[in-house]
């Protein structure tokens, strides 16, 4: 009665199997039975049609065709099949939920950019509508591209690239500061732009055409375009 090692790495928890406790470690795991506890592994997890996990799941790639009561956290991704049911929060860079799947909980995707705000899309949109010169727009577009490219590497690269294309970074910071202060002043119900701002001299191309309801993004952009 010899016991040889199984050829494939993956583990299977059979349909009649019940684990009361946590599962950890590494390797792929298919759960057809029931787990009352957390499953934290490095590897793929498949919760089959009749499988149940009453606890949280944390693994590289998670496919749910059964029932999960607990949070599901996938380092690579989560796939919820049509027969899948999750009562808990989902977090993964990529999440797929098929039609018919039942999910109740919050969903968070794209974790690798979670700490970083997108580069203020409101800033970019009005650029096409109005004021600034074409060259500014071009640079603006380029900058946005570079931000997108460097998203995975993080803020530092973004900052330095922006500096390379967009002049010294202190200027950028000043612009941000100004914008923040303007937002603040708007919040205090003053529709007219605050006085004493260096960018608001009437000779400027945007300042001239300003309605009492200022469009901040255009405004900021115009100021920048002018300075350049």
């Amino acid at each position, binding site marked *: *009665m*010899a*016991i040889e*090692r*199984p050829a494939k*790495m*993956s*583990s*299977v*928890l*059979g*349909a*009649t*199997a*019940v*684990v*009361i*406790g*946590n*599962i*950890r*470690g*590494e*390797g792929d*795991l298919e759960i057809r*039975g029931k787990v009352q*506890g957390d499953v934290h*592994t490095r*590897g793929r997890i498949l919760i089959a049609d009749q499988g149940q996990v009453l606890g949280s799941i944390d693994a590289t790639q998670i496919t749910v065709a059964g029932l999960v009561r607990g949070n599901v956290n996938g380092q690579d991704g989560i796939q919820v099949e049509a027969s899948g049911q999750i009562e808990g929060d989902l977090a993964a860079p990529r999440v797929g939920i098929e039609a018919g799947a039942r999910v109740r909980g919050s969903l968070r995707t794209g974790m690798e950019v979670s700490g970083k705000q997108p580069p203020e899309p409101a800033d970019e949109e009005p650029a096409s509508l109005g004021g600034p010169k074409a060259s500014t727009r071009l640079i603006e577009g380029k900058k946005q591209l570079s931000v997108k490219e460097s998203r995975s590497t993080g803020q530092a690269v973004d900052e330095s690239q922006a500096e390379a294309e967009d002049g010294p970074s202190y200027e950028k910071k000043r612009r941000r500061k100004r914008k923040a202060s303007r937002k603040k002043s708007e919040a205090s119900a003053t529709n007219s732009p605050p006085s004493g701002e260096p960018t608001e001299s009437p000779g400027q191309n945007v300042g001239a055409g300003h309605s009492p309801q200022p469009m901040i993004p255009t405004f900021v952009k115009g100021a920048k375009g002018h300075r350049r």
Partner: protein
Amino acid sequence: MAETIISSGLIIDGNLQSDGSLRLEGRIEGCVDSNSSIEIGPGAHITSDVAGKRVALAGSVAGNVDARERVDLLAGARLTGDVRAPRFTIADGANFRGKVDMEVNRGD
């Protein structure tokens, strides 16, 4: 092929119970209970009791082993605990420390 397979990288901090057969290569920090056969591979480590219909042991168990039909200690097995089974074999090279009870009368 066993219904449940726990491969070598996996660790269960708790009990594992099944009606189907088990093949254990990983580590189980708790009891193992099956109504069918249990194969405990060379790399497996179980820190508590094992109960099944047939138990084949090539790995390490620190706990009592209880089987309705038979227990086989294979070469390289390491068992610290008592054995209760109507049939019991110990292969050359197996390591065993504990008591044996083969007078098991159970209604099955």
